[in-house]
């Protein structure tokens, strides 16, 4: 019955051929290349304009540029400075691959790299706490950040505020840095000593104090407030940033020391504001939470109800009371839009039917759009998405570090203030989600745990598109299109009513206009 095969030469050839086929097919078909990020291999930043006069630009919180004194540097002929140059020359003689990679990484721009780091931390910490055994939820505590739930829960409002503070602080610190650079006018090490190679590109910018150290110092200090469990990793990263500046020949040790001190001091101004801007009270109390519901019922409207199981208190219900950057609190109240259609109105019924029509049998294209703009749990949030969009456009513009910081500060202040107005609106009207009013409605991405009106994605996007359109005019139409897509994704995804999205975009654009007004007179144009 059974044929017995011998492993003869013929068979061996067959096996050989078989495995050759496997290897070729595997290589062609399931080729799993190392995945690279879009910004992994950027060239060194070569600003088209060094912005030598940026010390004259209008700061955000810093009242006087000389609030924090930077001592007069020693002369470049001083024996101690010569020793600092020798340190660089010695290092440059024996650079390891890791050190060269580190130089290359930071050469793309310190503001960019720290912005990416922020986005990374937001994504890492954007996780809603798991419920307690009794069906309540623990609240992350800044006082006890290492205990579960880890602090922070970097949700969209938290993230928007973190991006704004850190960007704004970087900007003020760099304006002060530029002020002192011009004041002391110490040339870059490679200009003083021809034996030093400008590995990250030559610059006409005076090197004292080091802008890299200012950025590293101010950012590391700010991060202590926003990501306290990451301080160790952040300080190590700040050191790598400073190492790169020295090894690339951009700064000597005294440039670094002066820059870091300046950055860390200026951060304190922003940290002091952050501690008193009402964000610490944004979680509210059970009494606050109940009050939203009773107030809404008293108005004859159906209140929002959490669809998380177990029911979770709405996300940061008092975030709307945070003190904005671009305008005062009275203005932020004035920006609250009129109420949404009544939950008992025909208009609301129409809008509900529209949401159902999109989600009943969703198209693949709609599913993809919803996921592209989802920016939910475990992501860098919609404000982070807009930072990514902005950063990848700014890279092409070859901006100086101070201009980078200025643009991101304007963007992120817009996003934070848009978040404040949006959250105030959400908890003023406490309007239900479509899936609450019609349980047939299923969502194409995770349902956020807060009231619907107005859409956060839409408000953030309206603000971002508005200020970015001013900063990069030739991309204005593209930003508007992206904002419309982000907004629409929430309607077709079953998360929002049309009114939430349309009004959200409008309110966002209004907030963005305040940033434009600020940008027009900050001296950076």
């Amino acid at each position, binding site marked *: 019955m059974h044929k017995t095969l011998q492993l003869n030469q013929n068979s061996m050839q067959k096996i050989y051929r078989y495995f050759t086929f496997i290897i070729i097919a595997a290589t062609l*078909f399931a080729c799993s290349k190392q995945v690279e*990020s879009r910004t992994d291999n950027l060239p060194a930043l070569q600003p088209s304009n060094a912005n030598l006069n940026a010390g004259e630009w209008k700061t955000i919180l810093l009242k006087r540029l000389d609030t924090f004194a930077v001592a007069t540097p020693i002369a470049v002929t001083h024996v101690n400075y010569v020793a600092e140059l020798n340190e660089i020359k010695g290092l440059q003689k024996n650079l390891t691959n890791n050190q060269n990679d580190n130089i290359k990484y930071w050469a793309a721009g310190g503001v960019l790299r720290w912005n990416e780091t922020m986005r*990374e931390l937001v994504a890492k910490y954007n996780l809603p706490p798991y419920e307690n055994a009794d069906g309540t939820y623990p609240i992350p505590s800044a006082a006890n950040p290492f205990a579960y739930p880890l602090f922070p829960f970097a949700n969209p409002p938290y993230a928007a505020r973190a991006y704004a503070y850190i960007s704004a602080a970087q900007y003020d610190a760099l304006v002060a840095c530029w002020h002192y650079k011009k004041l002391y006018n110490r040339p870059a090490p490679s200009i003083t000593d021809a034996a030093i190679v400008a590995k990250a590109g030559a610059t006409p910018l005076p090197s004292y104090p080091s802008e890299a150290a200012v950025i590293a110092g101010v950012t590391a200090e700010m991060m202590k407030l926003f990501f306290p469990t990451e301080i160790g990793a952040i300080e190590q990263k700040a050191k790598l940033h400073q190492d790169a500046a020295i090894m690339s020949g951009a700064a000597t040790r005294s440039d670094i020391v002066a820059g870091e001190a300046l950055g860390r001091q200026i951060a304190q101004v922003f940290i002091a504001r952050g501690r008193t801007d009402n964000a610490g009270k944004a979680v509210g109390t059970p009494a606050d939470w109940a009050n939203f519901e009773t107030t809404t019922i008293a108005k004859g409207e159906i209140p929002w109800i959490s669809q998380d*199981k177990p029911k979770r208190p709405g996300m940061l219900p008092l975030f709307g009371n945070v003190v904005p950057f671009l305008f005062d609190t009275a203005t932020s109240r004035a920006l609250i839009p009129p109420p949404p259609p009544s939950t008992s109105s025909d208009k609301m019924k129409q809008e509900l039917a529209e949401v159902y029509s999109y989600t009943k049998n969703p198209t693949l294209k709609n599913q993809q759009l919803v996921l592209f703009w989802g920016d939910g749990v*475990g992501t860098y949030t919609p404000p982070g998405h807009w930072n990514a969009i902005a950063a990848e456009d700014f890279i092409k513009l070859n901006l100086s570090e101070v201009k980078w910081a200025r643009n991101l500060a304007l963007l992120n202040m817009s996003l934070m203030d848009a978040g404040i107005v949006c959250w105030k609106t959400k908890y003023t009207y406490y309007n239900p989600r479509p899936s609450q009013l019609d349980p047939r409605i299923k969502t*194409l991405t995770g349902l956020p745990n807060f009231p619907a009106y107005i859409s956060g994605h839409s408000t953030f996007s309206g603000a971002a598109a508005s200020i970015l359109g001013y900063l990069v005019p030739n991309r204005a139409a593209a930003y508007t299109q992206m904002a419309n897509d982000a907004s629409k994704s929430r309607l077709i995804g079953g998360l929002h009513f049309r009114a939430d999205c349309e009004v959200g975009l409008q309110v966002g654009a209004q907030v963005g206009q305040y940033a434009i007004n600020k940008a027009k007179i900050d001296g950076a144009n």
Partner: protein
Amino acid sequence: MRLSKIKMALLLFAIINLSINTVYAQTDQDAIMMNKNLFCTGIVFGTSSWNKYWEGVNSRENLNLGTVSSNSLSVMGNYGVKDNLNILFNAPYISNKASAGVLHSISGVQDLSVWVKWMPIEKELKQGTFSLYLLGGASTPLSDYIVDYLPLSIGLKSNTFSGRLMLDYQINDFFITASETYTLRGNSTLERNAYFTNKLYLTNKVAMPAVNTINVRAGYRSYWLIAEALLTDTKTLGGFDITRNNMPFPSNEMNSTSVGVNFKYEIPKVAGLSLVSGGNHVIKGRNVGQSTAYYGGLFYILDFTRKRKTESNAQNTSTQSK
């Protein structure tokens, strides 16, 4: 082993994991060959569900998912190119849903998998028959389904290539089969263009770690009936854990150990028609659902030998002589 001149059917192997939630009905895990010019084809319905999953190594429930269930309908086939060389395929339609929460259900045609199965060695050994198989398999998505929607996505949307070594030993009607499979997976493409694993990636491409699978099965195997128990251990060679209360991700380290049974019954009255059924349960896992799965299917063998009698006469003769 080869069931000479005997009609045979297909057995199933089920890989169940959190992301796919379905029965991957395959015919490539058994030590049975189709004879030359026979084409066995059929459909299999599978259903699986879980209400607990491993977040990393911690077992948990998720009240916002409730029970996640997956139904699949697969079209499968196995063609005998030669008596010791078969080509197999499988294409499932999958539908996934969660019983609680508000996430939309997802359904669609998943991946086509094709295997080449070769038995270079079959020999008498002591009282039984020993055979050795080498298999190469590939899979590719058949539709542009969404991937970034775990745990309800219907697949991981990656091209794969697998190599397998399988050994079988049969004495009378009792057998044992063991195999090890190494699967390379190409990059998956997300709908978004940035993601965090244990660091931030600014791209829509996700590197997918390779997977190693060990399968051991033993039981009774005769012309009319196959009944076997099986153990499957699947290990992802890399990847990362789902963090606390996070969503699953395509490149998670998805490991599972499952036990199951398979049956195949040859219907006496209709030559070439057979029924298959079985089930399995995940007993241990990491970043996967603790699923229980059942399946049932119907297969029929088409004999192309007769239709091409003239040109294949010589080969038939040689087949029959075995």
